[in-house]
């Protein structure tokens, strides 16, 4: 009875339901005692290795701090970068990475059914906590994305200030968008549009590999384009760096105002001295400025929230369930014909099987998107106003200093400083211009 005639096939085709019950034929009864093969189940990468990754991360962070602050060694930082690129990049295929964990965290907070793996939380927190104390040591030599860009840089060009400042907003917007899409459970866009992970894997869609190649090409001349103009985790680290306890200092002694370090920094992070204003702003003007700010801030945040709210239906389409529900309602008004067995036809079939549940799920998701994009809009408003405030403040500075937020602690500037060269015995102390008079406010060297 198991010897079906080929002609029976047609009969089967005609009679079988769409997804009928399986187990149509009885199991065989072998006379010779044939033993069934076993379906193999190769193990996934063992959990222990995840903890090894975390340990490597912590070790590399500690080593980076030591190399930056104690050894002040560019070469050491470079070797550690090469190691991190090899381990987190090519060996671990860029996954697990701290950049993507933002999304796991957002999903974990808003979706109760998703239990956040402990190692992922560790990957999110460790570089941030380190940055709160010692600046962006993670970016310096642990992040494989940063390491790759740092190592391919051949001839840095200076990015004009206006461009640097405006593109510098993008990471913050990407951070907000990435968190919003992850919180609604619709997509991990930070991972999806990551330009380097396809390179680490040496596979992926052509368009993504092309994007990665484009970033590498640009990165030959523009220092760390992804870090400065896209990386959402870098945005967080930048904020942490701004309030960090210790910071990268170029000179081990006093600043000779030679500007050499400014040329050494390929990332536009060096800030030149700013004289204290000779005529401090009169209090009336200061008050007026504060009043303005207090007015503009809520306006920008509220306006952003309103615009964000309008964008919710558009953003909601990123969620596969909402997209399917829309396809289904469209199909109801003007029937769509897809070739059978294509993903479109099959998903429409699924929609038709239980339209009520689908539409309800989509409605619920649209509600979540309404909230998420309102928050996102408010965030955009906040980011822009805070950027404007930051631009309007010009803190007095007597020496050349790296910007706390922008500095990725690559350690290139150290060797450029004549005072550092004296410390290393590469220059005789007499070669230096004299120490500035104590009358001038010396901001460096107290220890």
């Amino acid at each position, binding site marked *: 009875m198991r010897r079906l005639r080929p002609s029976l096939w047609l009969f089967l085709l005609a009679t079988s339901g769409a997804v009928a019950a399986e187990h149509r034929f009885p199991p065989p009864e072998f006379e010779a005692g044939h033993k069934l093969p076993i379906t193999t189940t190769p193990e996934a990468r063992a959990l222990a290795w995840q903890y090894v990754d975390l340990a490597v991360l912590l070790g590399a962070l500690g080593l980076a701090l030591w190399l930056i602050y104690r050894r002040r060694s560019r070469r050491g930082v470079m070797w550690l970068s090469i190691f991190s690129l090899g381990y987190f990049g090519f060996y671990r*295929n860029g996954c697990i990475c701290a950049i993507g964990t933002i999304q796991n965290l957002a999903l974990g907070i808003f979706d109760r059914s998703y239990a956040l793996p402990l190692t992922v939380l560790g990957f999110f927190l460790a570089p941030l906590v380190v940055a709160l104390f010692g600046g962006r040591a993670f970016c310096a030599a642990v992040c494989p994305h940063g390491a790759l860009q740092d190592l391919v840089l051949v001839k840095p060009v200076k990015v004009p200030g206006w461009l640097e400042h405006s593109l510098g907003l993008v990471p913050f917007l990407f951070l907000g968008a990435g968190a919003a899409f992850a919180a609604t459970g619709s997509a991990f866009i930070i991972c999806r549009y990551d330009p380097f992970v396809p390179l680490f*894997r040496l596979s992926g869609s052509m368009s993504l590999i092309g994007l990665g190649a484009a970033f590498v090409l640009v990165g030959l001349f523009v220092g760390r384009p992804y870090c400065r103009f896209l990386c959402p985790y870098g945005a967080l680290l930048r904020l942490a760096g701004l309030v960090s*306890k210790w910071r990268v200092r170029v000179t081990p002694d006093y600043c000779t105002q030679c500007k050499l370090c400014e040329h050494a920094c390929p990332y536009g992070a060096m800030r030149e001295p700013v004289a204290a204003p000779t005529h401090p702003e009169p209090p009336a003007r200061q008050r007026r400025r504060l009043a303005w700010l207090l007015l503009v801030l809520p306006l920008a945040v509220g306006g952003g929230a309103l615009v964000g709210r309008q964008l919710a239906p558009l953003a909601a389409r990123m969620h*596969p369930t909402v997209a399917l529900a829309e396809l289904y309602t469209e199909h109801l008004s003007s029937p769509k014909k897809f070739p059978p067995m294509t993903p479109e036809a099959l998903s429409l079939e699924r929609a038709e099987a239980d339209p009520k549940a689908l539409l309800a799920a989509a409605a619920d998701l649209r509600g979540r998107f309404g909230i998420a994009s309102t928050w996102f809009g408010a965030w955009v408003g906040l980011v822009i106003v805070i950027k404007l405030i930051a631009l309007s403040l010009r803190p007095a500075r007597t020496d050349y200093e790296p910007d706390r937020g922008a500095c990725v602690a690559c350690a290139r500037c150290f060797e450029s400083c004549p005072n550092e060269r004296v410390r290393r015995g590469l220059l005789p102390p007499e070669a230096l211009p004299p120490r500035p008079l104590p009358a001038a406010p010396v901001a460096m060297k107290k220890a």
Partner: protein
Amino acid sequence: MNPGPTTPAFSRRQFLRDGLRLSAVAGAAGLAGAMAGRTQAQTTVWQIDPAKCVRCGNCATKCVLEQSAVKCVHAFDICGYCQLCTGYFEPEPNELTTAAENQQCPTAAIKRTFVEDPYYEYEIDENLCIGCAKCVEGCTRFGNGSLYLQIRHDRCLNCNECAIARTCPGDAFRRVPVTHPYLLKTDTH
């Protein structure tokens, strides 16, 4: 050379910075504490729920790997060992032989061996299987449903967001604990 304290000229800034840093540390600790109850020591991996897969073919093409990490697996205890396997043979095959034109599988990844009359055993060569689900469709629609797709974890990179999952028309992908990384079909007779 060590980062030293800043001069008194900056002390107001310094104070602000210390305060912000303290609150950031407190925030991080708070976050860790709040999430502690919702974290798990385990990690997850992606897997296909065979009951939801609708055999669309995306699994062959949408994986980030050149050779998809999704392969057909065979639940031998469900298989009927049919001579005319609807997963193996094209509809209306010329004859029941292993000639390529008779096979569903585009890469001839299924090995058909005679066991005893009238039983044949079907085994998947994973190095050839591209996860296209053609055989799965045939077996599920007309047979016992013993052929089905699974992500093979010796190949899968466990992407943070599986590239196939987001295009799956059956919504069949989900995260499963790494200790139980397969959603296997087993005999329910």
